[in-house]
């Protein structure tokens, strides 16, 4: 099960973009240029790149709080550039949500991004509605929600999987099991550290995959999306992975665990090795890297150069058609 080399290179590039986006963002956050809270997706690039590769602009995905990378890729692929995701994080008028949403609420339905909901897991039931509408209208689209292992604690997990099954809805559950919810290990939170164990009872395909190997995640998402588009109902994917970010910025996990994941299971390093094995020159990969770095810096500059939102935005769009009094 080998992807063609073009696709493989593109996935490498996309993962590099996520890594660079997140690390540059974190740098700016630490400088105080990015307000609010920040959760970054470093270490989880292979799941996000695979999702971005298979979801179309006409599909829908509900990203979670670590999905800046997925969001940016969807923008790039379907709207030409990902810089409006960066600008959103800076709270600027040029952001996808005009700065009103930030990291936790950036959406752009034109590229399939239906927005995060910072009440973790609440969109597990929202996604059902999108999927139902499409099914009722006979549209062969996929509605995806990205959830963390911790998020699985919410009761909505049950309501969602159950109803997706009884109505055979085109829902893709992309569960990113990175082993922890903030500081809490998955096995301390859940009856099983393998989320598929909790999902399987609902009677639709539940597949656990290595979330750090891009070839595996790519193929797994492909299979899931094919199943759903063919009208076969929901599909649950659990990506076993690990996040480089600890508790916000502090590390709390055992040193050997950290070493293992960062050195032996780094999805970018693995992808690079695979490509080199396939005969790609290291210099070509370095060139991709450099190109992406320049691109991201340009996005940051664009964000910084962008104006703050128009004050009128503060009271705009509370109600459709009705005004709210400003101060």
């Amino acid at each position: 099960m080998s992807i063609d080399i073009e696709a493989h290179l593109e996935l490498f590039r996309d993962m590099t973009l996520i890594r660079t986006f997140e690390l540059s963002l974190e740098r700016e956050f630490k400088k105080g240029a990015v307000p609010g809270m920040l959760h970054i997706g470093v270490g989880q690039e292979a799941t996000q790149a695979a999702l971005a590769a298979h979801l179309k602009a006409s599909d829908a995905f509900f990203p979670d709080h670590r999905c800046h990378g997925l969001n940016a890729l969807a923008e790039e692929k379907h709207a030409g550039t990902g810089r409006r995701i960066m600008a959103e994080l800076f709270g600027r008028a040029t952001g996808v949500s005009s700065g009103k949403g930030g990291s936790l609420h950036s959406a752009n339905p034109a590229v399939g991004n239906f927005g995060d909901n910072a009440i973790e897991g609440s969109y597990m039931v929202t996604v059902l509605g999108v999927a139902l509408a499409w099914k009722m209208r006979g549209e062969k689209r996929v509605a995806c929600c990205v959830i963390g292992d911790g998020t699985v604690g919410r009761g909505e997990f049950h309501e969602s999987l159950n109803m997706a099954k009884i109505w055979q809805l085109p829902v893709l559950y992309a569960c990113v099991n990175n082993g922890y919810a903030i500081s809490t290990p998955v096995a301390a939170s859940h009856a099983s550290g393998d989320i598929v164990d909790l999902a399987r009872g609902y009677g639709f395909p539940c597949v656990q995959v290595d979330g750090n190997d891009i070839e595996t995640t790519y193929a797994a998402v492909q299979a899931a999306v094919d199943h759903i588009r063919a009208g076969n109902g929901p599909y649950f994917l659990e990506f076993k992975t690990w996040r480089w970010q600890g508790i916000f910025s502090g590390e709390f996990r055992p040193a050997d665990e950290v070493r293992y994941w960062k050195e032996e299971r780094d999805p970018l390093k693995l992808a690079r090795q695979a490509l080199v094995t396939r005969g790609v020159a290291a210099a070509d990969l370095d060139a991709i890297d450099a190109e992406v770095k320049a691109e991201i810096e340009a996005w940051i500059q664009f964000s910084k150069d962008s104006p703050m939102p128009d004050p009128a935005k503060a009271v705009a769009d509370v109600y459709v058609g009705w005004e709210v009094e400003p101060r």
Partner: protein
Amino acid sequence: MTASATPRIRTYVQALNEALDLAMDRDPSVFLLGEDIGQMGGDFGVTRGLYNKFGAERVRDTPLSEAAIVGICVGSAMVGMRPVAEIMFADFLGECYDQIVNNAAKVHYMFDGQFKAPLVVRTAAGGGFGGGPHHSQSPEGWFLNVPGLVIVAPATPADAKGLLAASIENDNPVLFLEHKGLYRLKGDVPEGYYTTPLRQAAVRREGRDVTIVTAMKLVQDALAAADVLAQEGIEVEVVDLRTLRPYDAETVVESVRKTGRAVVATEAPKLGGLAAELSATIAEECFKELKAPVLRVAGLDTPIPFSLPLEKLILPGKDDIVAGIRHVLAARA
């Protein structure tokens, strides 16, 4: 709507049913979901017959998954549907509170207007029938401080139909409160499709001595109270709020500026509810004209007990309104 020559008498339930039926006829994006709303027609019969007419796709029975019911409303509304959910009893709104407050009410604003949430959550509110603490509450106070949400609460069969149709047409998320004590109320209901504007209170009865502002079942009690007092020559103006958020403060204020006295009445407790909002706004806006403090007639500050004589003590009714009006009239300017 204009009054027809021969009144067309329908119950509040029938009026709601007509609104759903006609809205579904007009607009294929309207669909219904909720517990036992299909073949059974809902716990109170509001959806009766619609399953047979529109089929299981558009009249969908759901599991007891209230969070999912509202989540499905939001998601489907985000992609152009117009879902109408039934939450069997308003007391169960606690289970989908997050979806209503943090999702439905915010999805338009927080994503910069890119999504709309034109959904209606219908639910049966109010007490008076021995339903006990979990089947009798008036929940408008739970949602009154939530920007982005619309709360609609009809008091008559004609309004039930027109306001429900308007709520379905409206592009905002609407919490639609149907008082169980009104379901069997009969009244003239115009034929065919019509909408009754949201955010417009109705002056149900004109009067120059005192204004009573209320909603839902208490509108009927207020009218009865006005009848009683009319026999003593007291003219009560009855304002039916109809939309509770955002509401028609102008009509309220205009009335009180005229009468100089006001009673506000809600079935829900006084502390922190709709009655407080109305009293505050009247006092702030009619400061010069008010001849007496606004009086809140409201439910006592307790859960709602099962036993009927206790429940009767808790919930306000016609007599409390009469007493409240007398009290406000007794106060010298």
